[in-house]
């Protein structure tokens, strides 16, 4: 029994070991970011990497910092953003200069994926043909065209004002909500508006991107970023994507997601197989929750087991160390109680600045939560021991260490186990919140399901969590049967 248990636990933790060699793919939180992240993830998986996804991390700076600090290993950034928002350079320098600046930060820029996602002016294909307009400087000759420019572009320092100045454009544009602009062009209410070059709606509305013939707009080339110490195999694999996605392709992919309601994973897989970058998997869709279930469960178990072991390793000796000193015991109970009151979400939120996101802060939070039941039960068990047993242990000449080791702890064990079991179950429940900070586990389908209002998906997390709780009870019953003589065990076991 004992041996099997150890094998089981080691087996569970083994993936953790290999997790260290996993490639973590990140992305910023918008559609194109998710999609590119998924493409990279599938390419790497195909190339034999053990891939973990942390897509949709948030704003630029968070994602970039996550890369720098090693929480993710790769994500796709735009050269313009890198130069201006991150590296705070005045202009967008040449690729080699940019590479040098990045290198000082420990970041390596990989070859561009092929498209430049920047601002552009778009015009309806029909109107463009009729008037033979193909580049922005052509517009100078058509001062009567109605321009509807998005509010944001009107406001930007590098937006409409300098653009008009650079090209000498004679228009007084109307501000328009970007989401309405294409419809307005279709209705012929306006002729020209601003757009991103990879917008999936450009093809749909039959629009033409006017060439930026004076190179006014800075380049926003999509490039995967890795750390300079990245695995060469990883770099090689990512280089395989170079120049495979041009603006039209990206538009099409974006459109598939937005207009055709396909999942990121499906679009990514279609693209990669279409480009013969990976073989089509003949398994089910990658997104089936059944397929992810083992991963969810293993992640969940890792989180809870590591946290539980930590709180046993810390909580029990700590309780033992202080239990003879009432003041210290009281302090210990108060402190663990304090930690318990910091509400789950606030705790996870507080962790982020300290420990970043992901596995480590989740384990730390769970660790802090499971301390209280363990510490309190250990203390109570030790403090309510039969005084005759204590007298005999002392009177026999056992040293304080031996008294604990051979008498007090064995007698306190049923109560201590009771605390550990409570902590384990609480952990299994609380670990579902870990998904909020990207630590995975069974919270992932729950959080997704709650936000998508998809009850089935919620149940994909909730039911295994519940079953895990029962399994845990069983396991502990087995452990107790192993370590506690029958007459001392609570007869449940």
């Amino acid at each position: 029994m004992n041996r099997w248990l150890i094998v089981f636990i080691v087996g569970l933790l083994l993936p953790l070991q290999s997790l260290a060699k996993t490639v973590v793919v990140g992305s910023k939180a918008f559609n194109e970011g998710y999609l590119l992240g998924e493409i990279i993830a599938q390419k790497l998986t195909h190339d034999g990497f053990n891939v973990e996804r942390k897509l949709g991390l948030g704003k630029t700076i968070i994602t970039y910092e996550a890369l720098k600090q090693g929480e993710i290993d790769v994500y796709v950034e735009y050269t313009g953003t890198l130069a201006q928002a991150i590296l705070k350079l005045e202009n967008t320098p040449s690729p080699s200069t940019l590479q040098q600046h990045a290198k000082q930060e420990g970041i390596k820029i990989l070859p561009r994926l092929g498209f430049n996602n920047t601002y552009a002016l778009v015009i309806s294909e029909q109107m463009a043909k009729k008037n033979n307009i193909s580049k922005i400087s052509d517009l100078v000759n058509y001062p009567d065209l109605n321009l509807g420019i998005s509010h944001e572009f009107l406001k930007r320092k590098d937006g409409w004002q300098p653009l008009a100045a650079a090209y000498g454009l004679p228009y007084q544009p109307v501000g328009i909500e970007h989401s309405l602009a294409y419809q307005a062009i279709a209705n012929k209410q306006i002729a020209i508006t601003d757009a991103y070059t990879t917008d999936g709606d450009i093809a749909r509305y039959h629009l033409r991107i006017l060439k930026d013939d004076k190179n006014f707009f800075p380049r926003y080339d999509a490039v995967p970023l890795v750390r300079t110490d990245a695995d060469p195999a990883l770099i090689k694999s990512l280089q395989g994507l170079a120049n495979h996605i041009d603006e039209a392709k990206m538009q099409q992919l974006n459109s598939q997601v937005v207009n055709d309601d396909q999942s990121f994973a499906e679009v990514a897989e279609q693209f990669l197989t279409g480009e013969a970058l990976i073989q089509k998997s003949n398994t089910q869709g990658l997104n089936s929750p059944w397929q992810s279930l083992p991963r969810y469960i293993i992640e969940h178990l890792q989180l809870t087991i590591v946290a539980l072991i930590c709180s046993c390793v810390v909580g029990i000796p700590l309780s033992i160390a202080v239990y003879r000193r009432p003041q210290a015991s009281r302090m210990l109970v108060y402190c663990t109680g304090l930690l318990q009151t910091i509400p789950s979400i606030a705790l996870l939120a507080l962790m982020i600045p300290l420990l970043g996101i992901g596995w480590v802060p989740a384990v730390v939070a769970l660790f802090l939560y499971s301390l209280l039941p363990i510490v309190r039960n250990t203390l109570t068990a030790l403090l309510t021991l039969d005084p005759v047993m204590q007298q005999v242990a002392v009177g026999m000449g056992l040293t304080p260490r031996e008294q604990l080791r051979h008498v007090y702890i064995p007698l306190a064990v049923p109560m201590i186990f009771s605390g550990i079991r409570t902590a384990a179950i609480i952990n299994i429940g609380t670990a579902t919140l870990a998904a909020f900070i990207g630590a995975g586990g069974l919270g992932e389908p729950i959080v997704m399901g709650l936000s998508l209002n998809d009850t089935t998906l919620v149940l994909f997390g909730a039911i295994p969590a519940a079953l895990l709780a029962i399994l845990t009870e069983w396991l502990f019953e087995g452990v107790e049967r192993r370590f506690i003589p029958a007459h001392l065990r609570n007869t449940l076991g």
Partner: protein
Amino acid sequence: MQVDSTLKAAVELRNISLSFDNQPLFKNLYFELPTEKITAIVGASGCGKSTLLKLINGLVLPDDGEIHICGQQVSHSDQADWRRHMGYAVQQIGLFPHLNAADNVILLAQLEQWSSLSIQERLDYLADKMGLDQAILSRFPHELSGGQAQRVGLCRAMMLKPPILLLDEAFSAVDPITRMDIYQYFLRLQETEPRTVLLITHDMREAVKLSDYIAVMQQGEIVQFAPVEQVVSQPATDYVARLVKEHI
């Protein structure tokens, strides 16, 4: 530890005072435990016999007074060092419920890192002397009869061959025939490897049969402390006389 057999008293209590809840139990108690002799303490229930043993063992601290063991005054922290050399069978028996009878007996020897061979030898020897068979040794304390448990406790106290033995009514639950065997064992042992034994008993005949000295205690005071013959022939007080006359 070797008790210096030339020393008159292996244990000496000097001027001990002790109160429970402000009720004095001992006032300036003086007591000497003769080296390598068996001394019996008799006295009324509640007169302070068990407490005296706890004082010697250091489980109870005196409010005042000195305790000397083997000629050296000991402080509370020293006393802990002496304990392994003082086998102590407590009145409540107090076997550890998580260990079976054998493990209860050998625990100290294991901690002293005796070889498993010598542990087994000693265990078999003691079990034989105390009339405990293998089946009994493998039971947990809650499966033992009162007398069996008491004898296991006695084995535990004697396991390390301690030079000083403190036995608090250690035979009270043992039947008279088995008890006779144990007396024989003790008396033979005293001839070959004499120990300093302090035993508390309510059985005057046991005290007379087993011990060299008898201390009669009354309400925290020792009213007579003398060789057995002297106590029997010249009881110091009426109380001692009654004990001797009616109960031997």
